[in-house]
């Protein structure tokens, strides 16, 4: 999976180009762990994600925990399919979705 990373000041935007499932989630995990060390806050641009499986949710949760002591994470451009999964699993109440 192609994952774009863009840094603006201490805000790092991660854009996964494709769906997040048990195959692609480990790749995203790697990127998240690498970026979390230096970033002040993480933004996930979900514009190209049509589905996210539980493995992907764990990645997001992991990122949220890594950034807990800093400025946290944010999900943007969340499509309605992904939003449905986030709602179903009660993640939407816990995450910052913009």
């Amino acid at each position, binding site marked *: 999976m192609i994952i774009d990373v863009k840094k603006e000041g201490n805000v790092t935007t991660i854009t996964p180009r494709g*769906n997040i*499932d*048990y*195959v692609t989630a480990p790749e995203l995990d790697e990127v998240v762990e690498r970026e979390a060390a230096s970033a002040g806050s993480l933004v996930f641009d979900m514009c190209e994600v*049509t*589905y*996210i*499986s*539980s*493995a992907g*949710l*764990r990645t997001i*949760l992991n990122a*949220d*925990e890594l950034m807990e002591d800093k400025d946290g994470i944010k999900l943007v451009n969340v499509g*309605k*399919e992904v939003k*449905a*999964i986030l709602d*179903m*699993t*009660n*993640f939407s*109440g*816990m995450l910052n979705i913009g």
Partner: protein
Amino acid sequence: MNVLTKEEQIESEVKANGIVSVLCMLLSVIVLVYFFLIRTHLVESTGHEYTYFSLLACDVILALSLVLAYLYHDRAGWMKYILMFSVILTSAIFCTCMGNNYLVYLLPIVLCSLYYRKAFSVLVSVVCVSLILLGPVFTYAVGIVNYNYVEFAGFIDPVILIKGYGSMSIFNEFMVSALPSALIFLIASMLSIWLTEIGRDMLIRSREAAIKEAMIERDVSMASDIQSGMLPAQGLERQEFSIAARMYPAKIVGGDFYDFFMVDDSHLAFMVADVSGKGVPAAMFMASALTLIRSNVHAGTDLAMAMNKANRELVSSNSLKYFVTVWIGVLDLRTGTLEYIDAGHNPPFIRKEGGYALLECRPDFVFGRKNRIRFNKQYVTLVPGDRLFLYTDGVTEAVGPSKDMYGEDRLRAVLDSCGGSSVEDMIGAVRKDLLRFAGDEPQSDDVTTLCIEYCKPYDRRTDEGITVPADREGYSLMMSRLHQVLTDGGCDPRTVSEMETVCSEVFANIDMYAYGEGTGDVHITMDVLDGKVRITFEDTGAPFNPLEHQENNPVDRFNERLQGGLGIMIVKRICDDVMYVRRGDRNILTLEKEIS
């Protein structure tokens, strides 16, 4: 609660007032008659010359209280005092005028017990007994004496002489006449007070019984609703067959049942059954038998194995030693092959080309009673146009007015006469003929009938499926095919993405858990049929039922076990139906979702 409510008290008093009013009317007629008899000197009163005025006064008072009772019949509170006052007054005057005829006091003493009030009964009794004691003193004073005695010089107007007993003193008269009467009436009063209490108790008890009865009736009628709610209400809408069934319970709840449902897309299960026994206990047993059979057969395993398992489960919970006779069949809609098991039930009728004939059945032992029973499958092949008619013995053993039974021959005749009418109409025709046969005889047993026609073979092309290795390569093969199949099948993007998420979860599960460190294949079929997406996964990995895994609370971020439950939770929430079977060495997971 052993007191009467205010409403009940008022109701009983209004009723008592009615009875007392009627008796007052009779009393007033008697008094009136005597008034005329004495006035016209047809009869000589023993009393004073003003006797008839007293009688007239009585009548007036009675009439007045009757008018009041009529006007205020619902104001029970004070009306009883008015009525009882006039009855007592009339009794006193009538007694006095008619030669100290104490018997009339029986009237108020008995009547007061109608009011179910102890205090009121005591009051009336005390007044009456006092009047009996005081009455003679007054009557002597005005010169009225008893017929049986002679020669008494009164204070005002002596003396009535009747032939010869010698003279009597007031004291003597009092001792031999008034006192014994008063004592007898004292006993009668006690009796009346006792009756008051008994009446009251009975009223309370009948009220409680009525409440209890209403509760039981309500419970039973709810049980009946629940029972009929368990049976499929309508036929299944399929081109391959038509089916109809009805159960007519003899009591409000019955021990018969029927059921029909699709085991999978191409297999129809249907049955009729009869629990030994009737009423609510039999209905409850029926409910657990129905549920166990349905769930085990629905699991899609071999019919005999499913029935064996359901039997063991039912036996272990059968404390009342009931049993069920069951006839159950599973029809393969593709081939017309009908597998069936007959657990001690009547054989059904089958219509091949000619008319109806009993289907050959080797019955097994009844269902739900013995643990070690093994049921045997039997087979018959149906061709399009064939019909089966299932029933319980409530049909063939229905009794007519001449005490003969309906029997199989009559049933066969009705079935033959139905010709090509619909399965619903056949059920109706049998019901109608049974009612005609039974006439006025009450229905003694539940009547259950089920009719099915095999119309045409199931010919829908279903997916042959693909077999892929349970790894990343296989995963992307599956995902691209899934996208293709769902899009071609006309699914909306939302459903497509939801099913992609679901299949991603399931595949990940198989890769990670079913084969562990090793590797193996997954066979996946994908269908879009009847507005439903249906996907099956088959693998030969370790037995693993994902549905048995605990749903962890995904919100609990500190929960280390988050790993397991989340994916399955997503699968269960998205799909309408998720079924797991272990068949041989294979895990088979079936997912269904209606297309929105």
